[in-house]
């Protein structure tokens, strides 16, 4: 038995895969989501109605579409606070095109095109001129919504064609709305892009260390520019859905969404400092925020009280794990 080769397994990681999965951010989100679901279904008899649940999805689908692109942007270490204003400008452009007599396909192209153009504008300012994205997009946030106000003032566009209504009000099958399907499809697409492609790896690399990424052959400026384009495009998509759902455009449309979307992304476990985050986390965060909104709505709790809860949730989910870690290290030091 002397020629037996003694093998020794050195593990890649000290914790097992299932152990890590159990302790991940997503698991925490799933637990929160399930408890919100149960609390809601016990507290209101109307919650478990399929049509009500279907209605509830409209609370978050449009915001979540933008949040996917925003998540990638934040992973890459940038941010776009102008998204809600892009929605407003794209919606205004669609209204303008509608008044000029264009049909539904042209309206959609207008919306998406405006979104892309706005994203390109942000992208050029940030990547070409090296300006900090948070300030640039605070500026374009005023600029884009300002342009909508210049066009519309206190007026509104109404009277969109009836076949345009499908995108925000249509149902694909039974209670499954078009928006919900689009949300799921986009979630899968973005998850694949971020987690399974070279581009996604490049995005994470840039977020962790832009200088190192540059030296390892990643075209940092170009990747960031594409991310701004994507965020603009998704804002355009959200503008199409929202405008179609509301059937009208006012310059104040989607006001304050940028903060809700950033909250959604951060709640989803994406590090605001860049470098890490998952799309499934953002999907779960969107579900949680949507269900909390809907559940509180059923209990006649005003929207603003719900926003306190979202704010507390945002701080708590980040603070609690850190406090836990701090308590643990303090314990170790003592012993």
């Amino acid at each position, binding site marked *: 038995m002397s020629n037996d080769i003694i093998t020794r397994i050195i593990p890649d990681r000290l914790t097992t895969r299932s152990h890590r999965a159990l302790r991940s951010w997503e698991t925490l989100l799933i637990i929160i989501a399930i408890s919100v679901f149960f609390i809601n279904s016990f507290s209101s008899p109307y919650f478990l109605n399929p049509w009500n649940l279907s209605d509830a999805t409209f609370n978050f689908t449009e915001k979540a579409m933008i949040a996917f692109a925003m998540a990638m942007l934040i992973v890459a270490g940038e941010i776009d606070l102008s998204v809600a204003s892009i929605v407003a400008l794209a919606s205004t452009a669609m209204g303008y095109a509608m008044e000029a007599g264009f049909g539904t396909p042209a309206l959609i192209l207008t919306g998406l095109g405006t979104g892309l153009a706005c994203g390109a504008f942000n992208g050029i300012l940030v990547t070409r001129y090296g300006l900090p994205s948070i300030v*640039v997009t605070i500026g*374009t946030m*005023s*600029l884009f919504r300002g342009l909508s*106000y210049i066009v519309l003032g206190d007026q509104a566009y109404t009277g969109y064609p009836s076949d345009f209504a499908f995108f925000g009000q249509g149902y694909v099958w039974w209670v499954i709305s078009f928006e919900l399907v689009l949300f799921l499809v986009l979630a899968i697409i973005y998850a694949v892009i971020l987690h399974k492609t070279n581009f996604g790896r490049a995005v994470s690399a840039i977020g962790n260390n832009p200088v190192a990424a540059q030296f390892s052959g990643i075209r940092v400026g170009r990747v960031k520019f594409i991310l701004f384009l994507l965020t603009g495009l998704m804002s355009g998509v959200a503008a199409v859905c929202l405008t179609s759902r509301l059937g009208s455009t006012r*310059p104040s449309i989607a006001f304050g969404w940028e903060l809700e979307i950033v909250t959604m992304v951060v709640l989803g476990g994406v590090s605001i400092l860049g470098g890490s985050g998952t799309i499934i986390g953002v999907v779960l965060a969107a579900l949680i925020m949507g269900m909390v909104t809907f559940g509180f709505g059923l209990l006649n709790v005003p929207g*603003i009280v719900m926003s306190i809860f979202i704010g507390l949730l945002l701080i708590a989910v980040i603070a609690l794990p850190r406090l836990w870690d701090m308590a643990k290290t303090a314990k170790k030091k003592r012993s």
Partner: protein
Amino acid sequence: MITQFIKSREALLVLAIGLLLALISTRFSGFITPTNLANVFQDTSILIMLALGQMVVILTRCIDLSVASNLALCGMVVGLINMAVPGLPIPFLLLVAVLLGAFLGAINGILVWKIDIPPIVVTLGTLTIYRGTIFLISGGEWINAHEMSASFKAFPRYELLGQPVLSWIAVVSIIIFYLLVVRTPLGRAFYAVGGNPHAAVYTGIDVGFTRFLAFVFSGAIAGVCGYLWVARYAVAYVDVAGGFELEVVAACVIGGISIAGGIGTVGGAVLGAIFLGIIKNALPVVDISPFWQLAISGSAIIIAVAVNARSERKKGRIILKKAENVA
């Protein structure tokens, strides 16, 4: 010293403001009379004060997005106190506003200091929490002019040496912040923490505590502004100053305060706020629809940040090329 001033950021802003005023006066000469300019200053006072508080926070490489909600909450609390006990003296109410504002700022500061959460996340959270709290304590009701005592409403308008108290408070705040930033060790610490946090640690500065103090200052001045806002417009409701936090940040950016921390002056913050204030006040008199205001201030921010980036790049020697610029 004079050549230094001419090259400085403030000189550029003074020039821009001068040009702006000249342009406005060609359309409407009454705008540049001293009385009207004093009115514009009075109208901009609150923005100036908030910009000063925000400047200190931005200097330490943080950001405070909760100032407008903080302002609204303090305003509502003071308004409710006044409604319940109309006889209380104004200095007492001011003290309440300052302390409550400082307390709300301290909450932000503690979260940034002790738990090390990124400031943008903290203040994004407290922005909604403070705003929601106003709804909870007021039940969504408005406090209207007739429910406020006469002295409560009159205080900011009370004239002292020909100018309203509101303007004087702004002037005093400017002086206090100037002395704080330029003449005290704490002021130097603000710059040090923002300029290079690691180096600041080695010079014996407690980075977290300095940031905490910056948030307390920003909160305290937001509290004062809360009372002034509510008293001046004689109304308090949930959405007071909604979205004003971005205007405050905009004033700082236009004033040349670097969002990356460590760069900026009191003069810059004040001039940036005045620049926005002039635009806001001038649009109606030169027959431009007020709906243009948002787009104009947006453009001003973008131009200002582009100018900032150019002047900041000159300073210091670049040893390693920045990754973003190579591509």
